[in-house]
C-alpha cells in the first residue's frame, strides 16, 4: 500500500490520542489532570463512537492508573496512559515497578511545572524528576512529533521491554492546534505489529509469578539487565527512527537532531517545544552573520552520549537551554551533557541558561540575546557565570 498521509488539524493532546488509537492500544488507564485531560477524553470518545476497541479503566488516582497499566501489560496487553506534573509525581513509585518488571507501557507526560506555586504551564522538571526510574524518555518538539513519538515509543519499548514516556509541552503543544500528518491504519499495523510479550501471565502452560522477592543474591543481576536494555535501546531507537523515515518520510534516526550545525561555531542545545523557537532563531541569526546551529535532544533516556561527543568535538561552545532545574546544582540537561563529555576529548565551553520555567515565554529575541552572550564568552575564552537564570527580573 502506498503511503498517503491523512492530514488533520489537531492539538498535541489529540495527536497523542490518535497515535494511541492507531497503535491499537488494548488498555487505557484514565485519570484526568490538566493539561493532559483531553488525551483520555478523546480516547473515551473513540470508544464511545465504536472507533476503537479499548478497555478503558477509570481509576481513582495516577498511582492506580500506572498500577492498572502494569497489570494489563503483565497480562500481555498493549497499555497506555497519560499524565502531568503532580500526577506523574504520584506515579513515581509505580514507574519503578513497570521498568523493573520490564513491562513496555507507553505514557504521554504533558510537561507541567511542579507546585507550589500552583502552575499548569510548561516546565520539564516533572518528567526529568523521573530520570532514574528506568523509563525511556522522548521529548516532542511539535504535535507531529507527539504523534510519531507515541508510535515509535511502542515499537522501541516492546523491542527492548522497557517502558517509555513521550513528553510534550503543556499548552504550547497540548492545547495548540497544528497540522499533523497521520498514517493510515493498515500502514501503522505494518510498522507496529501486535505485541509479543516477553512473559505472558495469561499463558497457563508456563505459570510464573511477577513482583517476587529478589534477595541480595539476585537483585543486582536484574539491575544490570535493565541497564543493558537501555544500552540496547540506543541501537533500536536509531533503527526504528530510520525505518520510520523510510516508511513515512520523517527520519528519526538521530537521537540528537542537529540543525545547521555543520560549520557552526556554537550551538544551542535543549529539548522539547522550545527547540522549535531555537531553530527559527538559528535561521534569523545565520542571516545576521552568526555561525550557529541547534541540537535538539530527542531521547533523554537513554542519554545519547556518543552523538553528543560527535557534536561537541566540532564546536567551540554549547549553550544548554534548560526548562528545568535541579536544586542545589544546575539545569538537568546541562548537568548530564557536561558529565557525558568529561572523559572525552571534547571540551567546548558550556553555559547553562535556565529558561521558560513555569511557562515563561521564550522567544526568538531571547535566543538572539543568548547568542550575543555566547559569542562574547567564546571570544574571551571563559565563562561569565556557569548557570544563568536568564529571565530573572533584576
Amino acid at each position, binding site marked *: 500500500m502506498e503511503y498517503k498521509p491523512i492530514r488533520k488539524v489537531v492539538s498535541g493532546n489529540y495527536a497523542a490520542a490518535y497515535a494511541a488509537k492507531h497503535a491499537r492500544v488494548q488498555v487505557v488507564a484514565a485519570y484526568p489532570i490538566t493539561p493532559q485531560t483531553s488525551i483520555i477524553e478523546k480516547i473515551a470518545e473513540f470508544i464511545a463512537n465504536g472507533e476503537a476497541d479499548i478497555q478503558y479503566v477509570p481509576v481513582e488516582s495516577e498511582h492506580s492508573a500506572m498500577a492498572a497499566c502494569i497489570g494489563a501489560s503483565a497480562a500481555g496487553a498493549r497499555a497506555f496512559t497519560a499524565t502531568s506534573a503532580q500526577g506523574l509525581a504520584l506515579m513515581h513509585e509505580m514507574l519503578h515497578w513497570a521498568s*523493573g*518488571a*520490564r*513491562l513496555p507501557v507507553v505514557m504521554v507526560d504533558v510537561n507541567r511545572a511542579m507546585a507550589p506555586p500552583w502552575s499548569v504551564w510548561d516546565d520539564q522538571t516533572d518528567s526529568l524528576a523521573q530520570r532514574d526510574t528506568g523509563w525511556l524518555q522522548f521529548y516532542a518538539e511539535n504535535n507531529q512529533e507527539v504523534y510519531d513519538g507515541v508510535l515509535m515509543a511502542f515499537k522501541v519499548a516492546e523491542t527492548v*521491554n522497557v517502558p517509555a514516556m513521550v513528553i510534550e509541552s503543556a499548552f504550547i503543544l497540548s492545547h495548540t492546534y497544528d497540522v499533523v500528518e497521520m498514517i493510515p491504519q493498515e500502514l501503522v499495523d505494518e510498522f507496529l505489529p501486535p505485541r509479543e510479550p*516477553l*512473559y505472558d501471565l495469561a499463558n497457563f502452560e508456563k*505459570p*510464573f*509469578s*511477577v*513482583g*517476587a522477592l*529478589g534477595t541480595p543474591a*539476585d537483585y543486582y*543481576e*536484574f539491575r*544490570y*539487565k535493565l541497564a543493558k*536494555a537501555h544500552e540496547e535501546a540506543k541501537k533500536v531507537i536509531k533503527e526504528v527512527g530510520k525505518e520510520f523515515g523510510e516508511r513515512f518520510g520523517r527520519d528519526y534516526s538521530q537521537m540528537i537532531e542537529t540543525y545547521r550545525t555543520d560549520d557552526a561555531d556554537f550551538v544551542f542545545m535543549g529539548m522539547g517545544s522550545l527547540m522549535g523557537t531555537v531553530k527559527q532563531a538559528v535561521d534569523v541569526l545565520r542571516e545576521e552573520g552568526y555561525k550557529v546551529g541547534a541540537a535538539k535532544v530527542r531521547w533523554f533516556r537513554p542519554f545519547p552520549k556518543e552523538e553528543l561527543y560527535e557534536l561537541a568535538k566540532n564546536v567551540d561552545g554549547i549553550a544548554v537551554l534548560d526548562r528545568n532545574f535541579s536544586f542545589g546544582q544546575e539545569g538537568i540537561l546541562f548537568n548530564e551533557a557536561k558529565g557525558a563529555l568529561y572523559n572525552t576529548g571534547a571540551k567546548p565551553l558550556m553555559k547553562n541558561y535556565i529558561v521558560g520555567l513555569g511557562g515563561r515565554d521564550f522567544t526568538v529575541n531571547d535566543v538572539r540575546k543568548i547568542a550575543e552572550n555566547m559569542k562574547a564568552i567564546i571570544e574571551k575564552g571563559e565563562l561569565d557565570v556557569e548557570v544563568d537564570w536568564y529571565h530573572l527580573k533584576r
Partner: protein
Amino acid sequence: MNTLFGERKEGATKIVLTKVDEYPEAPISLGTTLSNFTGDWRTFIPIVDESKCVKCYICWKFCPEPAIYIKEDGYVAVDYDYCKGCGICANECPTKAITMEKEEK
C-alpha cells in the same frame, strides 16, 4: 504429591543461578516454589520430639507456609526447604514437643 501425607513435594530441586546470562530478562519467579526454596533465611529450626507428640496437629494447622506435613505414621514432620523458622509451631504445641534450636549452617 499429597499435602497431608508423604515425605515432601515431588520434583523439588533448588535453582541456583551463577551467571548473569542465566537470569530471565524480567524478575519473574523461576517456575513455582517447587524450584524456589523459601526456607533458607532461617536462623532457628524447629525440632519435633515424637515421644511428646500427641498428634493433635495444631502445629500443622498454624504453620503459615505450610511447611509441616503429616507422615504416614501420623506424626508430624517439617519440610526444611520451606520452613522459615518462625516458631509458631513450637509456641502453639500444647505438649512442648517442638523446640526451636539455633541452626548450624
